[in-house]
């Protein structure tokens, strides 16, 4: 960029200040230089305040995954919006073979180079996996509990081959799916070891430095201000024409709208449904309804003595909720109608919607359950914004009024998310409005937590224990044959929609608005964006 002051250091401060003041008065920036930088820079404005580290093995939040996905390569990955098929990334091919103790995945690595200039070898893969297992990071459980890996389970027979040994208790297809997540990001082990402090595997350094082979390298992370990435010229997934990506912290949707309208940012990450509707009719903008695997739902605590103990009451709630009304008016169409527990877009999801909006039927079910006059229940709701960008209290007000029509008097109790979660985890939420998204793009990411009481997750939090559901979820998790697996999920979703402790409200879209000059911007349901595929005209 062109500078106003020569970098010689010969100008004395006072005169410098005088000149700068004059420049300030003129208020004119050199437009030509700025213009070309603008062409090759992509600026995304959004609420990125969940970012706490850029170490791919530690990061577990949305923003961390979004960025590390562009700094690091995983062995396998997804391309664009298609999350049904795992594709080659650092591994050019792989083979799943059964063994006496379970199964084995053998990956063959493609020739690739880290941004540091070193080649990517199988030793780096082994190091990266062992690192996550030893560090006990927030995402370690994916490798240790879900994939059942230990230090030593991943081996490197030669520089281009990596072998994962997986016990019978884990499903190799799920292992492949979770390796696409940033927990499977491959780090330059030499670089990480060089920056190790007190046995942290370089974690403190990798928090704000990068050592990957992805299409971008980290330029700088100014906490709470911006993250700047520069294109990595050594990458095999090379950026088309974007040389720099800047993720700018803009917490408020209104600030993002302002900045997008004035051309200060190219993409706005968080729009409210109302603002999104306005953007749809603006020819200068592209309003993208990007899919998610999230599910907004009501959890009904089915503990003994609770009104929801009776399955007819839970059914009554499902009949009483006006899903179409929620999606149409509150979400302005930014949601899909779903009633079963596996989100649309994953193998094993079930599109059935057996519960039509029917308050009369809900009343009849309540009467049959011995509650002709309804009942009072505490309804726990988070403050702030809910899935799809709608204020949680607006959503709760709609649910409350729907329930009131059939005689269920839901007494809204708003609390901050952290408090809400604590109450929910303690099985103390009678009726709760929350959302869930799977840890990895596989039906099991919802199947086990929502259906299996023994997993100590959502079914447990709602005090709902059903032996058949647990068994179905467990068998589906380890089933390797895809068609058998889908059949098991069909059974499970059918059982859950009838018996389960949930009333699914919707599967939201995430509204993202881009300037019309931005091409190739795709955000998949995992929340990943491949920055290297974006260009600006």
């Amino acid at each position, binding site marked *: 960029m062109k500078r106003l*002051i020569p970098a010689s250091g010969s100008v004395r401060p006072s005169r410098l200040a005088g000149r*700068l003041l004059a420049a300030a008065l003129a208020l004119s920036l050199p437009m030509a230089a700025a213009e070309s930088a603008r062409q090759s820079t992509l600026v995304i404005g959004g609420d990125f305040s969940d970012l706490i580290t850029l170490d791919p093995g530690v990061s577990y939040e949305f923003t961390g995954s979004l960025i590390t996905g562009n700094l690091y390569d995983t062995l396998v990955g997804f391309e664009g919006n298609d999350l049904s098929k795992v594709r080659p990334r650092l591994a050019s091919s792989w083979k799943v073979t059964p063994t006496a103790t379970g199964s084995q995945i053998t990956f063959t690595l493609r020739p690739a180079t880290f941004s540091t200039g070193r080649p990517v070898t199988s030793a780096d893969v082994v190091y990266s996996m062992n690192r996550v297992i030893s560090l006990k990071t927030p995402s370690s459980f994916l490798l240790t509990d879900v994939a059942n890996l230990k230090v030593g389970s991943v081996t490197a027979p030669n520089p281009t081959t990596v072998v994962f040994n997986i016990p019978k208790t884990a499903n190799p297809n799920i292992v492949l799916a979770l390796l696409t997540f940033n927990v499977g990001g491959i780090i330059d082990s030499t670089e990480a070891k060089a920056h190790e402090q007190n046995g942290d595997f370089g974690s403190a350094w990798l928090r704000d430095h990068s050592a990957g082979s992805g299409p971008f390298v980290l330029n700088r992370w100014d906490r709470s201000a911006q993250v700047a990435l520069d294109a990595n010229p050594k990458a095999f997934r090379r950026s088309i024409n974007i040389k720099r990506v*800047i993720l700018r912290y803009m917490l408020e949707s209104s600030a993002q709208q302002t900045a997008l309208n004035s051309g200060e940012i190219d993409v706005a990450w968080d729009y409210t449904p109302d603002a999104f509707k306005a953007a749809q009719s603006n020819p200068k903008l592209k309003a993208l309804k990007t899919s998610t695997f999230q599910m907004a739902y009501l959890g009904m605590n089915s503990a003994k003595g609770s009104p929801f103990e009776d399955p007819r009451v839970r059914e009554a709630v499902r009949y009483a909720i006006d899903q179409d009304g929620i999606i149409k008016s509150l979400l302005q169409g930014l949601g899909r109608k779903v009633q079963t527990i596996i989100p649309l877009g994953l193998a094993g999801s079930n599109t059935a919607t057996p519960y039509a909006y029917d308050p009369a039927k809900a009343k009849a079910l309540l009467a049959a359950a011995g509650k002709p006059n309804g009942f009072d229940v505490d309804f726990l709701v988070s403050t702030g914004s809910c899935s799809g960008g709608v204020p949680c209290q607006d959503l709760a007000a709609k649910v409350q009024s729907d329930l009131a029509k059939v005689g269920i008097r839901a007494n809204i109790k708003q609390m901050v998310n952290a408090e809400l979660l604590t109450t929910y*985890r303690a099985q103390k939420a009678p009726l709760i409005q929350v959302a869930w998204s799977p840890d990895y793009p596989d039906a099991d990411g919802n199947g086990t937590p929502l259906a299996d009481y023994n997993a100590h997750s959502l079914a447990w939090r709602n005090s709902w224990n059903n032996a058949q559901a647990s068994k179905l979820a467990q068998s589906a998790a380890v089933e390797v044959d895809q068609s058998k697996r889908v059949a098991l999920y069909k059974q499970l979703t059918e059982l859950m929609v009838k018996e389960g402790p949930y009333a699914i409200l919707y599967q939201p879209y995430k509204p993202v608005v881009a300037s019309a000059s931005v091409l190739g911007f795709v955000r998949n349901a995992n929340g990943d964006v491949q920055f290297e595929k974006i260009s600006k005209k």
Partner: protein
Amino acid sequence: MLIYILRRLALMLFVLWGVTLAAFVISHVVPADPAAAALGNNAREQQLQDFRVRNGLDKPMVVQYAVYMERLAQGDLGTSLRTQSGIAADLRQFFPATLELTLVAVVFALIIGLPLGMLAALRHNRPPDLLARIFALVGGATPVYWLAILALNIFHERLGWLPGPGRIDAYSLAPPVHSGLVTVDALLAHDGEVFVDALRHLILPGLVLGAFSAALLTRMTRSAMLEVLGQDYIRTARSKGLNGQRVIWKHALRNAALPILTVLGSLFGSLLTGAVLTETIFSWPGIGSYATSSAVSLDFPAVMGVTLVAGLAYSLVNLLVDLLYVTLDPRISFS
């Protein structure tokens, strides 16, 4: 004088200790689990337990406070639960942004409030006075977030005169951090473009943050000046034939300065801590934003760190104001 300062500093320690105790108690009576907040919805029970043990959250409150105070005595502000990084380092990073914004706001408050208040006093009950009174009333009563959104909409979005949120243009990179004040760092890097850009980015949030103070200062200056102008010695000075300007600047303003200074001191303190809303709307990465995000995620050590630093800044500014009294008014002495 030196003894006075030492005594004040010792007293400050007590005040700050009170601040830590209050902040600690308040943040620990919240009925929520910081581990759940830090690890999120999908965390497993074992992860939560590990987190609590690692951060000492499983110990009784008294023990936690003792540990906190022991570390504090060694100058260690603790570790953030959310980011697992040192809080002192966090504050060093976030504080300069707030300081820069606050300084600009104070300058705006001064250059608007002081002349306007003086003008109002000199043109008592005439149009300028009326104007100043309206400004003082409206400026003091307008909520800062509303003013911020309005200012952004008019001067940035509609007219395009001034840049929007953030400290510098989104397409340029900030200069290497030395002082943390972007303007100063830009000068150190000899980057004139970024310096100008940073200055322009300071105007809107500075005006918004300074508006309330400017209004208050206008009112204080006006009433202090009115009172002084009515005093005998001013009439004496005027009757002696001294010219009007000299009377106003030398005699009247100097005597009105004390109440104005008092207000200014407390304003600086409240600006420093009251930047939360302005920082949120202007995407300003200062301690206001840091405090908000820490509070939402139940990051107690971080919240306590912010509280302590705000308390310290407030106390120091107050001390400074008291010391300035002596220089302005020789009749006051601390010995």
